[in-house]
């Protein structure tokens, strides 16, 4: 770093991007190049071919590392490429992965359909239950992967305890920190070996890129991760890396504002008669409220809720909102509403969905930067119209 400071907000603006040494340009140039001229055989400046390393991507990696007080980060083309890289770098045939049963549907699909057939044992466990996690880790494992809060139910994993249990079983402890980002939660400080990020979400925050990252303080692991990225070619593109760097400059502002907005909207939902249950870590009624306060600095942008009318009512609501967009992503600047059972988690086997609490009636709301009163008005109006439609068609009798 050029200056003596470690404040998170300052890092978000400056880390990894000193002014360009040749021109003084405050922003890092986009090195949109495939290859780099080498001075002599065997002599380069750290960059040879952009699949292996690129200066703009390296700047993003340096910033992502700084945000988690880590020396290393490796950026990938998508969030799923980060999960793929992590698994390929750490687990071989005949070894075992323990994964939280409530994780993004793409992670479940990858482990079930692509990794298990190669002779890797994949066990899904209730990571929100320390006893269940301990029981699953009686048997050795190579990798434990959890999300906290879990997408989409927002169930928390006790990360400090999870790290102890994973390490005792000889496993690396990986935490998917996509929902909260280092602005709101620091898994490495709680004992995790690697923080997994889909930068597509709150990190970049403008719904304009795809990207992933793996952040670690383990030098050997970083070396293995880089080798996989270079080998399978899932490296981040320079332009997307540059857009992600720009997005991070406002990450602390967005993370705080979206958490505040989500809390306001969650309180509204909690008081609405058509709503059966609401989960948001900032609600007093949140079952793991104490753990949330211990390991998160705010509740984050996601809300999970279910209507009294179940799936029928939820579908009516999602089809009738006007300000909220029915879309997949989360953490974006605009409020997105999602039906996990048919959208983000459609490829999770129904039995696992049910066990994880991803009911057909579950609605996921990712609250954006709009004025929360406008989001509330949209939800209130949609709930009223949805209820009237269902009552007149005789679908709901309460």
């Amino acid at each position, binding site marked *: 770093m050029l200056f003596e400071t470690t404040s998170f907000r300052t890092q978000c603006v*400056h880390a990894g991007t000193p002014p360009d040494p040749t021109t003084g340009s405050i922003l890092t140039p986009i090195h949109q190049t495939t290859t780099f001229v080498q001075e002599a055989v065997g002599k380069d400046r750290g960059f040879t071919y952009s699949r292996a390393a690129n200066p703009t991507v390296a700047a993003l990696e340096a910033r992502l590392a700084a945000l988690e007080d880590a020396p290393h980060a490796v950026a990938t083309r998508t969030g799923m490429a980060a999960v793929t890289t992590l698994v390929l770098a750490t687990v071989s045939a005949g070894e075992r992965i323990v994964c939280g049963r409530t994780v993004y549907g793409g992670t479940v699909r990858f482990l079930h359909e692509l990794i298990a057939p190669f002779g890797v044992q994949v066990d899904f466990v209730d990571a929100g239950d320390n006893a269940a996690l301990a029981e699953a880790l009686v048997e050795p494992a190579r990798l434990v992967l959890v999300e906290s809060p879990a997408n989409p139910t927002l169930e928390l994993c006790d990360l400090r305890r999870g790290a102890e249990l994973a390490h005792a079983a000889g496993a690396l402890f990986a935490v998917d920190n996509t929902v909260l980002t280092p602005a709101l939660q620091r898994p490495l400080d709680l004992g995790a070996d690697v923080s997994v990020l889909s930068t597509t979400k709150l990190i970049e925050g403008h719904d304009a890129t795809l990207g992933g990252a793996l952040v670690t303080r383990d030098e050997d692991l970083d070396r293995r991760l880089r080798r996989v990225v270079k080998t399978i070619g899932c490296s981040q593109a320079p332009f997307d890396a540059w857009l992600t760097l720009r997005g991070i*400059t406002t990450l602390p502002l967005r993370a705080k504002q979206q958490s505040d907005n989500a809390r306001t909207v969650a309180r509204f939902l909690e008081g609405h008669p058509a709503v059966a249950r609401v989960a948001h870590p900032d609600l007093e009624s949140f079952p793991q409220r104490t753990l949330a306060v211990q390991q998160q600095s705010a509740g984050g942008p996601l809300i999970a809720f279910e209507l009294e009318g179940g799936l029928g009512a939820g579908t009516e609501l999602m089809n009738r909102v006007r300000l909220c967009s029915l879309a997949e992503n989360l953490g974006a600047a605009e409020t997105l509403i999602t039906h996990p059972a048919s959208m983000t988690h459609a490829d999770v086997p129904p039995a696992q969905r049910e066990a994880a609490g991803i009911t057909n009636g579950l609605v996921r709301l990712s609250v954006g930067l709009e*004025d929360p*009163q406008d989001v509330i008005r949209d939800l209130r109006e949609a709930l009223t119209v949805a209820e009237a439609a269902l009552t007149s068609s005789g679908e709901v009798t309460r």
Partner: protein
Amino acid sequence: MRPATRLIRGTRCGHDPYRATAPPLYQTATFAQATATGFDAYDYSRTDNPTRRLVEDELASLEGGHGALAYSSGMAAVAAALRLAPTGARVLVAQDLYGGTERLLDRLDLEVARIDTTDPASWTDAVFEGAHLCYLETPSNPLLETTDLRALARWTRRHGVVLVVDNTMLSPWLQRPLELGADLVVQSCTKHLAGHGDLTAGALIAKERALYEPLAFQRNAEGTALAPFDAWLLSRGLKTLGVRLERAQDTARQLVKFLRGHPAVTRVRDVGMGSVLAFETGDVARSQQVVEGTELFSIAVSFGGVASSISLPCVMSHASVPAARRSAVQLPPDLVRIAVGLEDPGDLIADLDRALSAPRGQPRPATASA
């Protein structure tokens, strides 16, 4: 729709058949036409482009105008506004203007008359009589003096003078001149609107169609419109205008409080809002040492970005103002301008404190760097 919501929804492309939440980038020069004889909505990007139109509609909505036109830089917008006045016309301009605007005024064939926009007592019928347009910035840059726009608009309207206000310093998030009586707003979108220091862009927002149409004709004829990619980046930046400006303003207030209590500072200028402030030390060499002694602040012109910057306007952004004019507006040579970004206020204050407290003539003690 409340302002925060408008920032998010305004940059959504309504006609995109795929309903992408980030607007499509129409990086194209031309558009195929349905027939040989009629023009469709878009034909050539110099005239109009869907990505640029999206951000223009958003700017018009934010400023409360009939329409907006985006230009390749703030100065391209200023030039287009000033050329509403025909050759030889009398124009009224404020005392304290951005150096680039002064440089342009020097070259245009206009009868430039200065008006103290901050002093209503100096306004008389004779001042406005026969003038074609009146051009000002409020708050002014870098002296941060404000103009009572409502009061001034009463005079310009009575005399048929086009009132043009550069609203770059506060942006429509904090001030809407068209609602206060201005006819045309100038924005250097490079600053708060884009907000990330990643492009140069300008805009004119006209209150009425009658002013918008000739400007649109002129821009198409001269080819000064904003490039589609920069328009796309601008639309992306607009989404966080509210959170950025609120945060920067909050930090700026903390810096003002700190500077007011610092013994090396003789005067602090601020308007209580926005992200720009200025101070004096009573000693040019001292001011220069402070500017060069900070580490977190880039020595750079411009403002409204995510990274804080510091400058000596007399020798940097306003160097193009002739010395005679600089002394006429009493631009103090020791004036230091600070443009506040999104860093932690504690970090910024500590950095300024070290630079201000270093003994005169001595470089600051080296801090640890890795």
